[in-house]
């Protein structure tokens, strides 16, 4: 996408995208307003987003569904691949679009409180005010998108070919097939930057649980070094494909099953790297401070494209929570240590005995 040095008119008119004039980039929404804000406006077109799944793969799948749902609503084309679950079931469970925020942040409670000490801060909201959406929509996780909406949009479901015979570039031919199929989709849908079409659209590629044990070749009885090499090569080739097209790929990877050095190279080949660290099953699950949240959201990498400076938010720690109707990412604020139980056990300050005297000053 970046081969287009100046963004032309046909490019600027793509629905569901927003140009970033400063960097000459086109941004599209991830489907989650808080994630768009965190990544500097959205995902740049032509980029690869790498998501390290939480161990149960609950939340990474939700991120992927949001990304794909936004594509369907914006009229983009979709390419979905998975070997762990059926691609059909992922598409059928996409959240339905809404015209308003299903669960807005209720910060009124905080404002109504009469502040006795820090009264100057009374008028400040306790949480960040939601900005108006420039791109993207709100979604309701409790409702599924109507089937006819999905059927009327351009969705390609990838399935494993049984009679594959390709060049032995990859040790597992599935990776080769997947890459070829994405390449074919780019060509047939005229998503390439060199194609001249009247009305451009975007291809959203969603790859679920790439590199999981389901991606191992049948001929391998155990984990070999080639399997890891395949993942690195695939990520690099995917980067090459995305860069040459009006497309964005979101890849979720079960990183806890793969060696760290392989993940590091995958992160290097991607433009955005996100790590979801769920509290479920860890000792953090019972931590009262983190009780409102479901896990840490780490933005490992945010590449500087067309610029020197990355829009990485810095050393702020983020957490995610899954509400009934929506998934949101927030800054982690530790609450002040006012705990009733803590108050009771506080030792008396200063010297002297605890016994009360009749005469006290």
């Amino acid at each position, binding site marked *: *996408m*970046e*081969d*287009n*040095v100046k963004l032309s008119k046909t490019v600027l008119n793509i629905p569901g995208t927003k140009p970033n004039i*400063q*960097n*000459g980039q086109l941004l599209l929404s991830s489907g989650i307003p808080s994630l768009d804000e965190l990544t500097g406006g959205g995902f740049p077109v*032509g980029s690869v987003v790498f998501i390290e799944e939480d161990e149960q793969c609950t939340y990474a799948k939700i991120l992927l569904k949001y990304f794909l749902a936004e594509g369907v609503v914006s009229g983009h084309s979709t390419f979905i691949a998975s070997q762990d679950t059926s691609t059909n079931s992922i598409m059928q469970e996409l959240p339905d679009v809404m015209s308003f925020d299903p669960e807005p942040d209720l910060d009124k409670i905080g404002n109504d409180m009469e502040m006795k000490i820090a009264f100057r801060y009374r008028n400040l909201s306790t949480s960040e005010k939601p900005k108006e959406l420039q791109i993207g929509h709100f979604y309701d996780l409790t409702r599924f998108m109507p089937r006819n909406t999905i059927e009327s949009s351009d969705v390609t479901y990838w399935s494993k070919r049984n009679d594959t015979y390709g*060049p*032995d*570039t990859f040790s597992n031919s599935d990776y080769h097939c997947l890459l070829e199929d994405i*390449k074919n989709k780019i060509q047939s849908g005229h998503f*390439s930057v*060199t194609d001249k079409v009247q009305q451009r659209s975007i291809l959203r590629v969603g790859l679920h649980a790439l590199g999981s044990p389901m991606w191992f070749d049948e001929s391998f009885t155990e984990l070999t070094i080639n399997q890891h*090499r395949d993942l*690195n*090569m695939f*990520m*690099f*080739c995917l*980067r*090459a*494909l995305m*860069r*040459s*097209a009006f497309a964005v790929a979101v890849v979720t990877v079960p990183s806890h099953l793969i060696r760290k*050095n*392989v993940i*590091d*190279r995958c*992160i*290097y*080949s991607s433009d955005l790297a996100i790590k979801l660290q769920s509290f479920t099953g860890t000792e953090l699950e019972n931590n009262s401070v983190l009780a409102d949240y479901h896990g840490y959201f780490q933005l*490992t*990498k945010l*590449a*500087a*494209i*067309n*610029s*020197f*400076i*990355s829009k*990485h938010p*810095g*050393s702020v720690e983020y957490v995610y929570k899954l509400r009934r109707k929506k998934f949101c990412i927030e800054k982690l604020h530790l609450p002040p240590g006012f705990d009733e139980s803590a108050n009771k056990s506080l030792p008396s300050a200063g010297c002297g005995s605890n016994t009360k005297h009749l005469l006290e000053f």
Partner: protein
Amino acid sequence: MEGNPLLTALNIQPSDRIISVHENGLSDTNFIITNLMKKIFSDNGKICLVIVHHTLGHYHNVLKRLGQDFMEKFRNGFATTIEPLKDIATNTNSNFLSSDKEWIVKSLFLAISDKINKLLDGYDDGQVYLIIDDLSHLTDLGVDIKFISAFINYCINLAQNERISLVINCHIADSNDNIISNCLRYVSNLVIDVSPLKTGISHEVTGVIAITRPHSTELLLRNSTLHYKAYDREIKTFAPGESIYHLYK
């Protein structure tokens, strides 16, 4: 160059014929490459750029911020590119996806030497730079280390011609990358290491640049360590510990 703190800090000497840039962890060395390109263009040098990590548009956009027009240089014959990244995406029978891994580096080197010879033709008194950004992606393509080190060897032999200089970028993520990086360090006249801060992320400092000239006899040029901060249009460098001073200047 005087207004550019990074180039002043790097203080490129005519003897720095083989420059290697090492990218540690999550740091980004692209600013070093683009600033070196700016210097080469302002010295009327020619560049053969091997693009493996970014795209041509990226270099054009970043160099525009530094006051250089890459596309114009490209049209005037001062720059030429080899784009394996584009080739992989557009060419169905790309050499870079060949199962013969030796052929990948062989064909790449043949393309490089061909382009460099064309740049040298009719250009009598100037330096031609070969810039490879980034070499470590060859490991992603499954190329064995022995072939990569042979490739480095061939490139260095190119620099036997005094009018050819090399700038090679290398990312370090795993042990294979470390071997390539050490190999490059061994042959380089100037080694530039870019790392993130060990302590995490800071608002005032983006990372650390370590500059080493292993073969230099001048003590002042041998080693230096700097902190840097990336801005939208420039990179500011300063001695470790001076960052607060730069904030309030």
